[in-house]
């Protein structure tokens, strides 16, 4: 099957801000390979709709498919499917947005989630097979489940499903009388009776043996090495996941440049952090007033400010006012409106000095399903007028210079924390990287769009920095993988609790936490 270049978007997303569409066009000439079928689909879309394409098609015509001509489904493509491979930057600190695969141009909810799982397994199967062959003796056969022979040592590849009785289930809820909850919401759904089941297209098998059930969640594609015992359970001796792709060799920057991360402002009427926000803005806009040399240097050399979600408090989403009659609530404005207004003022001041990237979080007025679409620029009337404000998707994939970043607003980590006993949040981040999945629990317990043709949550290109916002505290670590892979893992704390931002040095990829609790910013050691 030959591959070809991809054509770019022909339908601009409704939520794309003018700043974002400009940068997307600059990122348009992506060269790498891509499945031929998706290219043809977008080309067909160009013929059907008479809309002018957002960017000209750069690549050559796709090579012919073997045998008959493919007549393609004339439906609008759900996702702008384009390569997410890295692009060589034109200057050292150029920002390139690679999150196009998270933008939804069409919403089709008439499909089931089984297709997403089939796509995930199908796309990762060959790569997992390769890493299984590298890891274990190549004489051990890789089998399909219907070919299993009792007590024969073999390797199976499939997608994991974790059966948990404590997991909230709508079926159980409806089965009880009056439909009330069987149990109060828990902190963790882990139980001693949980089971791990490996699933393929047609069969599944229970796993046991050298595998810790509490360290895994649903949705991980893995290879297991072991044998089937007489009870029909697969006894695992060892397991592995897809190997991480080797990221591009980083050439260190000549000067120190910093990226600031913040998340979880959680603004509402009852917020008490307005003073701290004031200190933050003053420190950024007038760094010369700061006494500490180190902080002055960091803030004056910051090139980007990334807000990783949860701008407003979840209580602003309460539905009490919407359930009341219209005449009672006519004069009331939703508290989220006030909160967004104050956020806008804050971002306006920050946007005067540095580029600001805004990612939606679980509390924000964007869609609930992952991938969350960019917040509409009409919610930021003053800050969206500036070219330095960018509204982006959650998860967010981008590069600055040669450094590749990938991050979310934290819902994926929170969900994995519910389903497993992994104590350390950075460990969960590391596990997500090892599993090559941004959010493996999608769509099982974390709501997600029913993709059919691709799974955008698979980590194909290893990032250099992998971050997650809205975590209980600041934690960071460097993940050392095989083949000299090093990834900086970063958990960004809630600003509402810790009153601090994280500064990442692009030259050394080291982080430090700057606290704005008092008027004088301090670095927390």
């Amino acid at each position, binding site marked *: *099957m030959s591959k070809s270049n991809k054509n770019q978007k022909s339908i601009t997303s409704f939520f794309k801000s003018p700043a974002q569409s400009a940068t997307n066009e600059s990122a348009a000439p992506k060269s790498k390979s891509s*499945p031929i*079928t998706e290219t043809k689909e977008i080309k067909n879309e160009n013929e059907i709709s008479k809309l002018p394409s957002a960017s000209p098609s750069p690549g050559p015509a796709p090579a012919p498919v*073997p*045998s*008959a*001509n*493919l*007549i*393609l*489904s004339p439906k609008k493509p759900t996702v702008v499917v384009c390569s997410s491979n890295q692009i060589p930057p034109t200057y050292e600190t150029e920002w390139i947005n690679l999150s196009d695969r998270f933008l939804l141009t069409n919403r089709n909810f*008439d*499909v*089931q989630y*089984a*297709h997403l799982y*089939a*796509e995930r397994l*199908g*796309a990762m*199967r*060959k790569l997992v097979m390769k890493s299984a062959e590298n890891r274990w003796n190549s004489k051990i056969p890789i089998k399909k489940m219907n070919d299993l022979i009792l007590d024969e040592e073999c390797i199976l590849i499939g997608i994991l499903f974790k059966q948990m009785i404590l997991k909230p289930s709508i079926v159980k809820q409806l089965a009880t009388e009056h439909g009330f909850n069987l149990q109060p919401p828990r902190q963790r759904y882990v139980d001693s009776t949980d089971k791990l089941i490996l699933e393929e*297209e*047609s069969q599944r098998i229970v796993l046991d043996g050298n595998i810790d059930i509490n360290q895994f969640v649903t949705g991980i594609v893995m290879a297991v090495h072991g044998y089937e015992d007489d009870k029909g359970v697969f006894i695992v001796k060892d397991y592995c996941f897809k190997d991480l792709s080797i990221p591009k060799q980083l050439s260190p920057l000549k000067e120190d440049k910093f990226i600031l991360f913040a998340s979880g402002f959680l603004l509402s009427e009852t917020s008490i952090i307005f003073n701290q926000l004031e200190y933050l803005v003053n420190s950024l806009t007038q760094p010369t007033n700061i006494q500490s040399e180190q902080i002055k240097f960091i803030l004056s050399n910051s090139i980007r400010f990334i807000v990783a979600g949860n701008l407003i408090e979840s209580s602003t989403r309460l539905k009490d006012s919407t359930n009341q009659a219209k005449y009672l609530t006519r004069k009331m404005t939703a508290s989220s409106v006030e909160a967004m207004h104050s956020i806008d003022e804050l971002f306006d001041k920050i946007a005067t000095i540095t580029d600001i990237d805004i990612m939606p979080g679980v509390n924000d007025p964007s869609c609930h399903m992952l991938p969350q679409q960019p917040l509409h620029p009409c919610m930021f009337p003053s800050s969206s007028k500036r070219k330095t404000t960018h509204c982006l998707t959650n998860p967010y994939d981008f590069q600055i210079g040669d450094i590749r970043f990938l991050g979310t607003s934290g819902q994926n980590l929170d969900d994995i924390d519910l389903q497993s006993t992994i104590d350390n949040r950075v460990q969960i981040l590391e596990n997500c990287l090892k599993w090559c999945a941004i959010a493996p629990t999608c769509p099982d317990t974390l709501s997600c769009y029913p993709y*059919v*043709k691709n799974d955008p949550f698979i980590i194909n290109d290893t990032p250099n920095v992998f971050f997650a916002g809205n975590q209980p505290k600041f934690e960071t670590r460097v993940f050392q993988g095989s083949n000299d892979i090093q990834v900086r893992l970063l958990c960004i704390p809630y600003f509402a609790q810790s009153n601090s931002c994280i500064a990442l040095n692009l030259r050394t990829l080291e982080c430090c936490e700057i606290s704005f609790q008092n008027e004088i910013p301090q670095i927390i050691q």
Partner: protein
Amino acid sequence: MVGSSSIKKRKNNNDNTSIVDKQNVVDNSKTNSTVKKISEKDLEVLKQFDLDMTFGPCTGIPRIDRYERALRHDLDPPTHVLELINLYPNDRQVTHCIWRDYTL
């Protein structure tokens, strides 16, 4: 004499079989490729493609999408299925799976 022949014509129009013929006539005028109806043997090939679990779930997506997914994952789907889909692009029996009339 004239009256009785016109009554006969009306009776023919009320016959159920003529409706099917009318449908076929409409199809022929719209497309060039749907010259004839698809044979039972070919429908069986398509049905077996749907029920084959190696290519993943079949409900809710057109057959061409499932075929493209099978190609993408190197599962070697039968090319005859692709030819059939391309021969009858307007026949819903061919383009959509056997569960097409059932909702999610």
